[in-house]
């Protein structure tokens, strides 16, 4: 945990000289604790204090970037254990595992699967972020060959090179020397050589514990750091769900609550399973519980959609509502006679209302109005879902050109607005719909009669 203002204050000169621009050392300490000021502003701070404060101000989970350019992904930088405390920062990376025993055609096919994995959801482009090349052959030739194919055919996709073979590690990492790969496979037996390769080619080093668990892992990261490698991802070696939960939780806690630096790194989890559905659930555990890289054995579209959505849900900022774009959405294939309903652009409101309209099996237009992501009642209370704003939105939306009728269905919770909307929207009739979305199917059915 970062130091508190009072703890920082104890390390300052306590002269209240004001040279930093703050009235007292205590005020300066408080700003430092909130990371709103830099220690450099104090000309008189001791070297000892500088060192202590420097360590304390480093993020508890080291920020690491995988890959370069547009497809680079950031990992680490997490500050909490529970998402309700503060947003989880960097969404985990999904990587497709590719075995080096595959033919070059098969590898290219997998590359295309990764490239075509992009799905748009609530305005975000979600995708498989990386490829993990696996040294199933055990030797260097096939691995080097496969790395060459990836490097040439898919230069833009970040890679995790998984091998314990030094020759394979050297050749493949060299291919990616300017592209921030992860070289995964350092262990107690090959630590120095693997560190040398990672350092030479500026790769992030993936360290795996064998049977020694987190204690062994801590020792390994410290050794690697002494060898000059700072960018590290860690694998506690667990493969069972129960152990993954235990290890990931203890690692995140040690980093965040104890500021234990030897485990303050992103975690890599290998989720591959024979049973594809179980693998999906395994990956879900990683998403919820602190994995930064999750390696998968296959990336079917149904599986991607479920995992991407979970990642999006878990990493959503709990204080900022998800929003959808303001526009008139078509549900089914509406005609010029189809009903027009209006609601706000809080993503949950939109999803639920559009889902229920869909369930009603009546093709409709759904006008979704930008209310800064607030739900209907909240938006109304905050003055963002008002008669004049609704009238303006309907006029400007151009819906009048698509429908013959002039009837607007409003949420039951804002029934009070019906009169004033009719005043402001000339020639229109306002109908009050149900208060809750689950009343929509019955409401629509009753209108058909």
């Amino acid at each position, binding site marked *: 945990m970062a130091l508190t203002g009072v703890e920082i204050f104890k390390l300052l000169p306590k002269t209240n000289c004001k040279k930093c621009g703050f009235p007292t050392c205590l005020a300066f300490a408080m700003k430092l604790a909130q990371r709103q000021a830099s220690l450099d502003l104090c000309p008189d701070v001791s070297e000892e204090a500088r060192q202590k404060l420097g360590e304390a101000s480093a993020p508890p989970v080291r920020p690491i970037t995988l890959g370069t350019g547009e497809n680079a992904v950031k990992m680490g930088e997490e500050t909490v254990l*529970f*998402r*309700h405390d503060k947003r989880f920062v960097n969404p985990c990376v999904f990587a497709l595992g590719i075995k080096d025993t595959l033919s070059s055609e098969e590898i290219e096919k997998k590359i295309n699967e990764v490239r075509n994995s992009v*799905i748009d*959801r609530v305005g975000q482009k979600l995708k498989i972020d990386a490829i993990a090349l696996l040294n199933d052959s055990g030797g260097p030739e096939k691995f080097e060959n496969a790395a060459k194919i990836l490097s040439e055919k898919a230069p833009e996709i970040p890679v995790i090179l998984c091998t314990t073979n030094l020759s394979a590690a050297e050749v493949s990492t060299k291919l990616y020397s300017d592209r921030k790969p992860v070289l995964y496979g350092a262990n107690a037996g090959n630590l120095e050589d693997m560190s040398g390769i990672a350092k030479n080619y500026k790769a992030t080093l993936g360290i795996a514990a064998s049977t020694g668990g*987190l*204690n062994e*892992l*801590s020792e390994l990261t*410290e050794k690697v750091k002494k060898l000059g490698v700072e960018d590290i991802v860690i694998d506690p070696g667990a493969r*069972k*769900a*129960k152990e993954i*939960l*235990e290890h990931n*939780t*203890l690692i995140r*806690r*040690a980093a965040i*609550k*104890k500021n*234990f*630096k*030897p*485990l303050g790194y992103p975690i890599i989890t290998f989720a591959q399973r024979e*049973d594809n*559905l*179980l693998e*999906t*659930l*395994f990956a*879900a*555990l990683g998403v*919820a*519980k602190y994995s930064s890289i999750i390696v998968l054995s296959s990336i*079917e*579209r*149904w*599986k*991607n*959609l*479920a*995992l991407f*959505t*979970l990642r*999006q*849900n*878990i990493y*959503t900022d*709990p204080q900022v509502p998800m929003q959808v774009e303001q526009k008139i959405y078509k549900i089914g294939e509406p005609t010029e006679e189809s009903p027009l309903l209006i609601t706000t652009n809080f993503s*949950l409101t939109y*999803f*639920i209302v559009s*889902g229920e309209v*869909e*369930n009603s099996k009546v093709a409709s237009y759904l006008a979704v109005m930008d209310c800064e992501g607030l739900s209907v009642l909240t938006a109304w209370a905050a003055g963002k879902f008002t008669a004049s704003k609704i009238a303006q939105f309907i006029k400007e939306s151009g819906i009048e050109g698509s429908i013959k009728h002039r009837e607007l269905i409003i949420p039951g919770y804002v029934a009070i607005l019906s009169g004033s909307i009719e005043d402001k929207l000339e020639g229109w009739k306002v109908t009050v719909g149900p208060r809750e979305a689950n009343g929509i*199917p*019955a409401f629509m059915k009753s209108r058909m009669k």
Partner: protein
Amino acid sequence: MAFIPPKETYPGRVYSVSIGTGQKEITVGGENVLPFHSFEGAFSNRPLIAYEIHDVPPSDWPESVQKPYLDVCANPVSWAKYCQDILNAKAIALRLIGTHPDRENRSSEDAAKTVKEVIDSIDIPLIILGSNHTEKDSSVLIAAAEASKDRNCIIGKAQEANYKTIAAAAIANNHKLIAMSELDINLSKQLNILITQMGFDKEKIIIDPMCSALGYGLEYTYSVMERIRLAGLAQNDPTMQQPILGDVGMYVWKVKETIADEKDVPLWGNTEERGIAWEAVTAVSMLIAGAEILVMRHPKAIEAVEKMIDELM
């Protein structure tokens, strides 16, 4: 630097709640740690998954989840027996959806008859759910509670608008009670307090903080469940120490991702596998967040989640 595992112990503990009778009685809850954190405390009772069945044929279920039950779902008794005897269900959740005024509008007497028939045909624990119509549920659940008297069921859901009658029925007939509120830890706590003020034993309540499907507010349910567990364990709040129920299937099998045909949304992949994964991923997320009881629909999703629980226990 030596690594000392930062284990945590908590002053609070989740109440152990038993449901059902005889040899098939099941206990959930009882842990004094966060979900599956057996490395630092006791997490000995396995979360329970109940198979959801209806009092009327599930015409509103998407095809992929109707399919496994096509031969049995015309009759709730054959449906329940199929789940117990063929699918090895550990519990059944009978939802009396046919009593909803917008559905078949079945009477309380009809509902009670169905409950009686179902409970007499199985020996595993039964959860009895209304149609979520607060007024109708009051009368339906009273009748259902009487029809299953002394069989130690869970009945629900009691909400702010109707908890008095339903809680009274649970007391009179020796059942556990689901207290449901809408995605807000404070509302959940308040409802638990109101129910216990009626003289209802706080250790016989099951919390339903309202489930949501993956992609449709899952993060809200997830965080409310985590906060309820932390309030019960870390703050030792006796009004937040009940087992939590996740009504997963009902929320999952109505979203587009579980229904849309692959032909219409080729980017989403196989419809059936997508639906099963949607339910299973939602369920596992709820378990990790703190749910001890799940109500689910697709046998393959349940099977996969049970395997996951095996590995987490």
